[in-house]
């Protein structure tokens, strides 16, 4: 892989990889992991056949890196994580606080899911990748993606406070 190509890929997909890692590890301190993902991409470039898009390929590498990282992670810095949303909305501080709390609860619920469910919720639910892109990253069939996503949502619903959805 030459320098020009990795620069192009980094410019195009570094933020996507960054965000995916944030969702997956539930922390915003993932810069090192982003770099690790791209270093792995350079090292494994010979195995990239071009069947999938570079973004899909990079996210599949990021997923493996994130899984390793999650195993090592002892504590999650939720407050720091929630700060990553702060510049997104233009609402009152109270609403903002409420919204952030909701997001935090949801993040915590996602973090408690088993890996398959977490994968599909992040890729399909948050990243809004297509079924085939998700299937490509997870090396699943399209139908497995659909079924697992459906099941994951059911479990996730139980994890989140009932009151939040009833209101």
């Amino acid at each position, binding site marked *: 892989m030459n*320098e020009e190509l990795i*620069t192009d890929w980094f410019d195009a997909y570094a*933020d996507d990889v960054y965000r995916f890692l944030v969702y997956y590890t539930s922390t915003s301190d993932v*810069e090192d992991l982003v770099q690790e993902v791209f*270093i792995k991409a*350079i090292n494994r470039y010979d195995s990239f056949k071009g069947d999938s898009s570079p973004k899909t390929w990079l996210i599949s590498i990021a997923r493996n890196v994130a899984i390793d990282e999650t195993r090592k992670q002892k504590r999650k810095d939720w407050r720091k994580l929630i700060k990553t949303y702060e510049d997104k909305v233009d609402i009152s501080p109270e609403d903002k606080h409420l919204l952030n709390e909701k997001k935090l609860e*949801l*993040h915590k619920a996602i973090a408690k899911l088993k890996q398959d469910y977490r994968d599909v919720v992040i890729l399909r639910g*948050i990243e809004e990748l297509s079924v085939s892109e998700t299937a490509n990253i997870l090396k699943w069939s399209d139908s497995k993606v659909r079924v697992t996503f459906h099941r994951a949502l059911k479990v996730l619903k139980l994890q989140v406070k009932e009151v939040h*959805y009833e209101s």
Partner: protein
Amino acid sequence: MSHNEDELIKELKNLKSNAKLDPQKKESMKMVLQQHAKKKRAKSKTKHSFIWFSTAAAILICGGLIYTLINTDQITLPADDNQQIEEVGNAGGDPKEPNDMEGLGMEESDDNDEQATPGEEDSGNEEVSQQEFKVDKLGNETQTIIPEGTEEKINVVNFRIEPYGIDYQVAELLNKYVIEENTVKHHGEDDMVGSIRLSVEENETIEQLSKEFQEKYSEEFDNVSEVTEPTDGDNPYSGLTQRVSATPQGYYLYQIEENVLVIQYEYDAGASDGMGPRLQKFIESIR
């Protein structure tokens, strides 16, 4: 999909952040990645070069081995195919060649003689050839000799030594022949009559060779004549000869261009009346 699921999916979509890497960190990461890519490419290049050179070396070695094998086969095959074979009619013969010329390129071993068994003889294979040295039988003719003052018609056989193109005639009495190494030995039905051996020493001079022969003869025999120019036969070439008095045997060396034709002869003393004139005719026929 239930209402709750829709709500949940909406909530999940809201989790999508627009967070971005810090531009400064991004630049430094990019630099690191570019350097890593550069290193990786250099390593890969070295690896590929190594593989390429290893493959090329392996191919060269294999090629060399195959070439050597083929070459060896080409050298070996003719030798195997061309075992020394005697002419038909020599089945009962047990040629006992004088083995006193060892070291002069004219030796004949008993083993070689034993290889010329009747089973190996081929009536149609009179021209027995080695890789280069071979003798072609060209035909017969009649010549006149004068043994004991009386004219006598004898049949002679014309031969040519290739690749030197040296022609000579041998009395029919000695028209059996066998090629051993670079020597052709003519003999009769049995070796009691005598034998003449011819060989060609390349890029030699008769003076140099005569020294070697003289030394050898002096060691082997008591009554050896001086080395002289041949007087008992005339041909276009300058030559030197030496003979042993007790038993009729000796050699002739003829300078034919840059090579030397070496002739060694031996015959039974009792047959000297007939063999002397035949040997003379043979010497005169050399061209």
